[in-house]
């Protein structure tokens, strides 16, 4: 039976090939973890970013930025005379795996803290784990705010830090009042647009349209037709992921130029402007704390060192910068309290901690676990980088519940009543959610 034999040998061959492929692709991670094997007395830090799956594109760069910071800290003598050792886990872009890996980092590896997550969904899946086992998470992404967990510190921007100055700037400096808002259909764009609408009312702008596209949507002809009919003179976009590049490309193909109708967004980074091509990106505006073109000595050396380690064609962006400086903030906090005890870091080490980040000096708020950041507005250039056209006078205070939408809500971990509640061990009060509801 020649056919059977051929099939069998084919199966053997393909099995061997597949085996080689599996070893080839997983070997780097295996070795990384082996290197990460801690010596007695080292300080272990968990790194929890997806290195595979759909959001690996951005999370790999966060992972890289954190490893760079750890390497630098160790080169300068480490923390408390000990080395920081990264324990890398790959949650594969799967929300449930994030929680499993977080548990493993806390219980098995007993890490001092975890730097990790990118999407809000992944953060919310790990938070209960951190609250139950009293771990410490540092989270670098800009997000929709309205969260306050004892066990999490947020080093990315919350909407007030990107919008409070951006919206009035558009109205006053660009002189454009009619906003058409588009976004991907999930919580971040909806919350952001809620805030934009409140700001429009406050500053005399007008909301002429609001539309959401399913996540991953890449066909924007209908929305562009609606924009054309709305009389808008500015498009405010909260699109994320693959939608961004497709929207900017199609926007120009339908005859819109940045001079006629600029797109303003708190999301589009250097990565996307590079991928959409110079003719589609140039002239549109983004509001961020950080751009690769920020002119500080800290940033120049950060960009230089990042490119030296990961390749000259690499681009840095705001979320990576937060991932980078939060590693330093953690190291300084450990240095300050003299140990890696979680409650000491949460109540003494991190609040008020300052660091000269690439974007300028940043500070963790004493009360609400979020971070004081700079505000900037960038105008995209032909090469995909941004010209910074406006910078805030000072760092902007993070306000997870902005006063003009939620006047009676706030988050204050210096309040004795709050402290009494959150310091109680989780096991004694299982009904309590770790997130503070005041």
């Amino acid at each position, binding site marked *: 039976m020649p056919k059977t034999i051929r099939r069998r040998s084919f199966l053997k061959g393909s099995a061997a090939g597949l085996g080689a492929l599996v070893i080839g692709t997983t070997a780097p991670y295996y070795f990384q973890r082996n290197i990460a094997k801690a010596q007695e007395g080292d300080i272990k830090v968990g790194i929890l970013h997806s290195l595979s799956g759909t959001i690996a*594109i951005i999370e790999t760069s966060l992972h890289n930025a954190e490893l760079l910071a750890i390497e630098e800290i160790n080169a300068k003598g480490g923390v408390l005379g000990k080395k920081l050792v990264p324990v890398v886990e790959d949650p594969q872009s799967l929300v449930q795996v994030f929680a499993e890996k977080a548990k493993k980092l806390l219980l098995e590896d007993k890490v001092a803290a975890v730097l990790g997550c990118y999407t809000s969904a992944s953060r919310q899946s790990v938070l209960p784990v951190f609250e139950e086992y009293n771990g410490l998470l540092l989270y670098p992404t800009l997000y929709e705010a309205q969260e306050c967990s004892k066990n999490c510190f947020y080093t990315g921007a919350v909407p007030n830090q990107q919008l409070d100055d951006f919206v009035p700037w558009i109205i006053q400096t660009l002189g454009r009042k009619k906003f058409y808002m588009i976004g991907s259909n999930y919580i971040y764009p909806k919350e952001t647009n809620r805030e934009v609408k409140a700001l429009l009312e406050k500053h005399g702008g007008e909301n002429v349209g609001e539309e*959401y596209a399913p996540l991953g949507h890449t066909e924007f002809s209908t929305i562009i*037709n609606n924009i054309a009919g709305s009389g808008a003179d500015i498009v405010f976009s909260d699109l994320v992921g693959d939608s*961004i*590049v497709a929207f900017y*490309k199609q926007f120009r193909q*339908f005859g819109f130029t940045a001079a006629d109708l600029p797109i303003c967004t708190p999301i589009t980074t250097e*990565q996307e402007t590079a991928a959409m091509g110079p003719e589609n990106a140039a002239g549109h505006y983004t509001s961020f704390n950080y751009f690769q073109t920020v002119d500080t000595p800290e940033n120049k050396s950060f960009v230089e060192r990042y490119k030296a380690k990961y390749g000259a064609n690499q681009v840095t962006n705001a979320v990576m910068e937060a991932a980078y400086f939060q590693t330093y903030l953690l190291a300084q906090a450990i240095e300050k309290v003299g140990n890696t005890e979680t409650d000491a870091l949460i109540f003494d080490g991190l609040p008020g901690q300052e660091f000269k980040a690439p974007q300028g000096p940043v500070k963790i708020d004493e009360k609400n676990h979020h971070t004081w950041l700079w505000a900037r507005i960038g105008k995209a250039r032909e090469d995909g980088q941004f010209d910074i056209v406006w910078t805030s006078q000072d760092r902007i205070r993070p306000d997870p519940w902005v006063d003009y939408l939620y006047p009676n809500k706030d988050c204050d971990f210096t309040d004795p009543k709050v402290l009494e509640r959150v310091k109680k061990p989780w096991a004694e009060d299982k009904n309590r959610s770790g997130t503070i509801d005041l």
Partner: protein
Amino acid sequence: MSQALISQVLIGLSVAAILAIAAMGLAIIFGIAGVINMAHGQFIMVGAYTAAVVGQLGGNTFVAIPVAFVVVALLGLIVERGIIQWIYDRPLETLLATWGVGIILEVLMKVIFGPELYYVGAPKILDGGIRLIGRLPYPYYRMFLIAVALVMLFVTLYIIFRTDFGLKVRSVRRNRAMSGCLGIDTARIDMLIFMYGSGLAGIAGAVLAPIKSVSTTMGFSYAVGSYMVIVLGGVGNLLGVPTGSFLIGEGETLLAYKYNAVIGQLLVFVAIVIAIRVFPRGIFGYHERR
């Protein structure tokens, strides 16, 4: 009919063209070789990356089309000779095998090209648009896409109905065993059809890259659209693809215009589920002669 609505119908045509371009390769492979190619989206992705490489070497979309056709057709040849030819008669296993191929391709492309997004521009000559009706100019590139969809359809129709090869293909589709008895090399027909369908997926990647984003995970959404088109249109007749694309494309665009994109997509899904209840084999269903 208001002007805005007319321009919306025209936009819907281009959306239908995009769907048809993406679905054509899948429909041919499914309709003739009987394999549901779960790696179809990833084949489109490889075509888009081919266009990105051609672009970096200085070529434009017109150069990228034949190159992507050849590259992905060769990829199809490797997949067909390496895996599919052994399991044609086991549909469930072809499903799993091609799914696996899709995953491998995605990882492989990420290893080769890195995780970042790639830039593919539209050719200069197709920049801009013409004002037909309503508020928006109609982009030349979208007209080009409609033309590509029509050319793909007519070339395929020509091959199937006006060539010797096409005669054999039709005969194999009608009755595989009898065709084999009459001396047609059915395995070779399957192989060539798999290559041709794969090549069409490559063209889809190359022409869609300039208006969409190019990343290793881009294939999935095209695959979903393509499956919907052939489920609705059926594979019994090549007209199933343009019919399915037209209904879905116009339906989605007009509903998105009337309500919004999220509702539009939802209603189209609902309509497809109902349509399958009425036409279980698609609008152009095919009944094999036994």
